[in-house]
């Protein structure tokens, strides 16, 4: 990297980290640069990838593209106060389509697939497999079952039902704990990468 580039990168990096001390002008400057540059970046990407490549180049082949363009145009009518309410039409279209599309997708991929995956034997043929395996499988099946009980809305968490719900939330808490522990490692290596940039690539203080 050239001198200017590396100083700029270091300046912006430190600017962001200065936020950890408190909000200040340096952070505000880095933040403003980031917002401006990144907003511009995404407009350009949207323009070339979505508008130019998907719409403009193929506008004669696919009538569905014009549905999108027409709805997009209706959305712009929001800028004219008198007929701004028409902008709700494309929103209604998106709402309906997203709901219809994902409703079916989640039904298949979340509910059916995961339920089927949990159907498994607790033990191998003729009582084979260790007690440990049996316990592990019981945890897996029982944990899933009790987790579902926890999410149950129609019944107060009381009595035996409440106990099952409690086991359910414990299982969920183990899941969260595991995910937290798992994420820490990679988050730390991100920071190691940045510190290494500052002290080695920029200042050359590290051997």
């Amino acid at each position: 990297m050239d001198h200017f580039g590396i100083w700029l990168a270091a300046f912006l990096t430190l600017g962001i980290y200065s936020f950890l001390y408190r909000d200040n002008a340096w952070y505000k400057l880095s933040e403003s640069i980031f917002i401006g540059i990144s907003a511009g970046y995404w407009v350009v990407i949207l323009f070339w990838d979505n508008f130019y490549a998907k719409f403009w180049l193929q506008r004669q082949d696919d009538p569905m593209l014009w549905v999108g363009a027409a709805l997009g145009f209706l959305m712009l009518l929001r800028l004219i106060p008198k007929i701004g309410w028409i902008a709700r039409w494309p929103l209604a279209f998106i709402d309906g389509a997203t709901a219809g599309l994902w409703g079916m997708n989640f039904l298949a991929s979340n509910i059916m697939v995961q339920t089927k995956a949990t159907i498994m034997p607790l033990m191998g043929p003729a009582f084979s497999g260790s007690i440990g395996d049996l316990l592990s499988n019981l945890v897996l099946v029982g944990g899933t079952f009790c987790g579902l009980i926890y999410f149950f809305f129609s019944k107060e968490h009381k009595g035996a039902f409440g106990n099952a719900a409690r086991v359910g939330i414990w299982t969920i808490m183990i899941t969260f704990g595991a995910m937290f522990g798992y994420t820490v490692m990679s988050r730390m290596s991100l920071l190691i990468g940045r510190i290494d940039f500052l002290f080695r690539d920029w200042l050359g203080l590290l051997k």
Partner: protein
Amino acid sequence: MRREIPLAITVFVGFLLIISVFFPPVETLGEDFSLSFDIIAVFAFFLGGGNLIRIHLKKLARRETDWMFSIVTLGGFILMLTAGLLKIGNPGDIATSVNTEGMLFESIYRSVFVPLGATMYALLAFFVASASYRAFRAKNREATILLVAAFIILMGSTPLGAMATSWMPESLSIFEIPNLAVWIMSYANLAGQRAIIIGIGLGVVSMSLRLILGVERSYLGKEG
């Protein structure tokens, strides 16, 4: 009419997409939808980008607090737009991707956008630490369970975990921290994940139906 037409659109499109799954002649409607969504999003950007410019111009005009930074944001935005839409420094023709080396757009991306993104991302390391200090407390049984599970996985991924329990006899090897970590990941963790995932599935189905049946209609206001 201002309420009825949008509602009719939602109901119609929603049911159409649900049913389309079962009928091969219309089964690609879902893909058509995502395509038209992409195009609507481009038009919507006139509103978003316009809003960005308007907010900052207003700040400038009124000399609100921190108005100087609005100049920076606007400058960056316009710089990136010009560089990218005109493809300044383009070594090829119009079909060349804006992310080709040599373009001004690409070099700003590499020297400003990338380090800033990486740095913001790495802020997480600090916040993980402060959250650990402040929030991971054995306040009740749930919190304690979370804490213990996190601790085992945390230890299991460094030399510390192996060292801490290496004295254990062979027969108890399942209780060595690295093995415990693997067990948690493949059993208890999986059980919790599945319960959450099935629950989410049901939540989405129910919410979709509420939207399509008109029980929920956020942007239409209350039923009259």
